[in-house]
């Protein structure tokens, strides 16, 4: 297993290099001019000023030189300086990443737990009233755009009822480091977590239901029932683990969202996370930040694929990796 993991880790290096080169090129080819947006309100701007700034910011270098400069800095574990934020890139990325992780990890844990529970419930009560209700709700959920749901929740719970703040991460009038601040922070998190969790529930609940239904029809479960095991034992001890295998794949595929955040939800809730950061940096042609965030997401995709493969072995003893 160790040899298998090491081999996969080594394979990741050229893959990530290829991804980084490709993404850098794509970002470079995107239309836009980072200087132009920076200079839009500057009166008396002369063409020579424009040329001088292009040179000073290294925007006149050919794309491969710019890419190499970026890569060299990344190798030295310093991705560079954000032109859009006026700070070292990691000083911008790390707080945003931390904020996003809190949001998405909570949403994933809550959402996926509820989804798995509801999926099991639907499967073991197939064609019951509750199964139909859940199916209808899921399809309604599929049809509702995330931003609209977020806005509706803001209007209902923040504007009309005043239970939660509309946006942001902390209220201005609380003293940081106190329990009031913690409570305030949790209040800020509830609505965005709820919106993200609902999306998680919708995505996973149907997979869990169909996967468990598939497993419940297997012969070995008929045997287990014939042996006199209770339905709870049949489902909990024998069916669930096998039913989880495809769900793990789905979860692994969606996990990069945990790092990548949700641009829409973060924008609507004015939440300073990585999704919004990525959007802003791409729109502002801030290659340093955009590239670092995209590479973080790429790394997560590759890492979670590896993790999923390892988890298969844990969930299904029949799967073994050859050294």
């Amino acid at each position: 297993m160790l040899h298998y993991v090491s081999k996969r880790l080594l394979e990741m290096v050229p893959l990530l290099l290829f991804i980084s080169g490709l993404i850098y090129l794509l970002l470079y080819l995107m239309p836009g001019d980072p200087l132009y947006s920076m200079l839009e309100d500057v009166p008396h701007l002369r063409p020579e000023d424009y040329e001088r700034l292009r040179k000073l910011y290294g925007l006149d270098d050919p794309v491969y030189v710019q890419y190499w400069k970026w890569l060299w800095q990344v190798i030295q574990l310093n991705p560079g300086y954000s032109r859009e934020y006026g700070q070292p890139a990691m000083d911008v990325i790390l707080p945003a990443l931390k904020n996003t992780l809190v949001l998405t990890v909570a949403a994933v844990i809550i959402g996926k737990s509820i989804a798995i529970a509801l999926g099991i419930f639907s499967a073991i009560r197939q064609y019951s009233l509750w199964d139909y209700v859940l199916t209808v709700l899921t399809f309604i959920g599929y049809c509702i755009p995330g931003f609209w749901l977020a806005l509706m929740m803001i209007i209902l719970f923040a504007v009309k009822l005043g239970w939660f703040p509309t946006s942001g991460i902390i209220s201005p009038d609380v003293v940081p480091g106190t329990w009031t601040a913690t409570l305030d922070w949790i209040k800020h998190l509830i609505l965005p977590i709820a919106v993200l969790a609902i999306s998680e529930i919708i995505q996973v609940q149907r997979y869990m239901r169909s996967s468990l239904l598939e497993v419940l029809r297997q012969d070995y479960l008929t045997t287990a029932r014939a042996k006199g095991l209770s339905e709870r034992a049949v489902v909990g001890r024998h069916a669930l683990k096998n039913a989880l295998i495809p769900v793990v794949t789905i979860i692994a595929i969606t996990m990069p969202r945990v790092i990548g955040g949700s641009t829409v939800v973060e924008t609507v809730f004015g939440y300073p996370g990585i999704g919004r950061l990525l959007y802003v940096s791409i729109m502002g042609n801030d290659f340093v930040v955009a590239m670092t965030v995209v590479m973080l997401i790429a790394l997560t995709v590759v890492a979670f694929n590896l993790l999923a493969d390892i988890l298969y072995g844990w969930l299904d003893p029949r799967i073994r990796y050859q050294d």
Partner: protein
Amino acid sequence: MARDKKDGGLNRREFIQTAGATAAGLFLSAWPSGKAPAAQVAEKRIVIVAQRRTAGFANHGRSDTEQTGLVDAGLAGQNPVTLERFPWLAEELPSIKKGTWKIDQKNKTMVTVYRLRSGLKWHDGKPFTSKDFQFGWEVHHHPEFPLRDRLVPDLIEKIETPDVRTIVIHWKALYNEAYAIQKQQLRAWPRHILEDAFRSGNIKALTKHPYWNQQFVGTGPYRLVDYGGGTQLELEANPYYVFGKPKIGRVTFRVIEDTNTSLSAILAGEVDLALRNTIAFDGAVILKEQWQTKGLGQVSLRPVSHTWVNLSGTNPLFKDVRVRRALLHAIDRNALVKNAFKGYVPVVHFPMSPYRKVFKKADAAATKYEYNPNRAQQLLAEAGWKPGADGVLANEKGERMEFEFRAEAGRRGEEQTQAIVIDYWKKIGAQCSVKNMPGRLLNSEEFRNRWPGAMVGGHNLVVEEWAERYHSAGTPTAENRYSTESVTHWNNAQADAIMDELNTIMPEQRAIQLQVEFAKLYTRDLPHLPMYYSPEILAIKKGLRGVTPRIESGGNNMNTWNMHAWDKT
């Protein structure tokens, strides 16, 4: 049943425990931190929201005039309501009468003398002296410093500081704004913080110094407590501020990019002031009807800029001024603003704020193009354009009045205007095809500042910036990478001469005369087809007093210029 441990791996229970502990650690590590402002709990506090993020408070990189104006001051400032300059850090503005502004017309050089107010201090309590201003010029003048606007630093020959309060500026050329240098043109930087970094010669490192944002120390009414990544500034009243400590003790300056989110925050009562179009026009109407009428606050819709339709300066279809006039006569702009903007927005005839002193005279001199489709058709016929069998205008050469019409995709007001104008033009036989693109694309070198047919856009009303917008010398070309803004291709020697003269030093009466003349020429030639004034939307919550919405946009005019005098009840 827990899985047995194998090969030192985790069993399910351990896995869950570890995952739980990691999640809890992550949750706690993200606990918002900051400096505890225990002493300020009882202070008056306001929340301001804006849409534009800042990357700092310097004159290089991305910054915003409102945020910068809260934390820093200049030698002079500008009242955004009267547009008069006032001495800010300076005791008084240099004047020719008092001999503190000397002009050598023969050699085209000048000297201005600024005297600083006594007892000036930086936010950190260190004395602010004339040497700091001289140092600021040295930094801005350095060729490797990526300053956005080098006009003023480059016009200065040298700066002398005979004592800690006196700044003597020697100018290489004549400059009509030399008597009122504002912070975005040139300002002081704290030598006690930046001088070592500057003298080390590593200018690149200096431009990335945390001073410019996270550790900013200025002279403005508020000092920075927490930078909040530029999206949530925490500010506290500056006890050393030149006009006295502000009445409102704490300010939170939040950036909310989504207009719906801002609207919700205002309706929920979380915001005291929403600046500069943080809410969209539709949102402003909602606020007017549902919020202002209940006495919860006030919505200001000041016409600070204007929207135009431009007909390509390089397209031969529009060379004849009669065609441009006809196309303007064909649009019912009054109906347009009534329907699309519920009458909150007035029609514009030339690029000048209606609040300017000279406006009435200029307005009287300007030609007006009222809605008159018959006159439009008559003018088109005079220019050789007659409707063909399919109703589309054609001339003797067989050319048809068909052209592309661009707007920035996603800008609802402009797209709406485009649709309405197209409809009006169709009625007189002009056929347009829509080609809208996102701002990113419109601002790219490939597309910016030029279009083959028509384009709806807008800009500010600042008379002092007319030259950038209308002077033939600023025409965008391949040589200047289409970076200049005189998009109209207006080539009128008389207008150029007016703009040149307006940038020189002259008596007020002459300036008025020139501006009136410009309005006359503009409305005669129609370099743009002026549509309507564009409002700047401000939402001011009940209880906040002292806010004076600006009459013009532009970097010199801040809505927060007098924040030290604001109060909250």
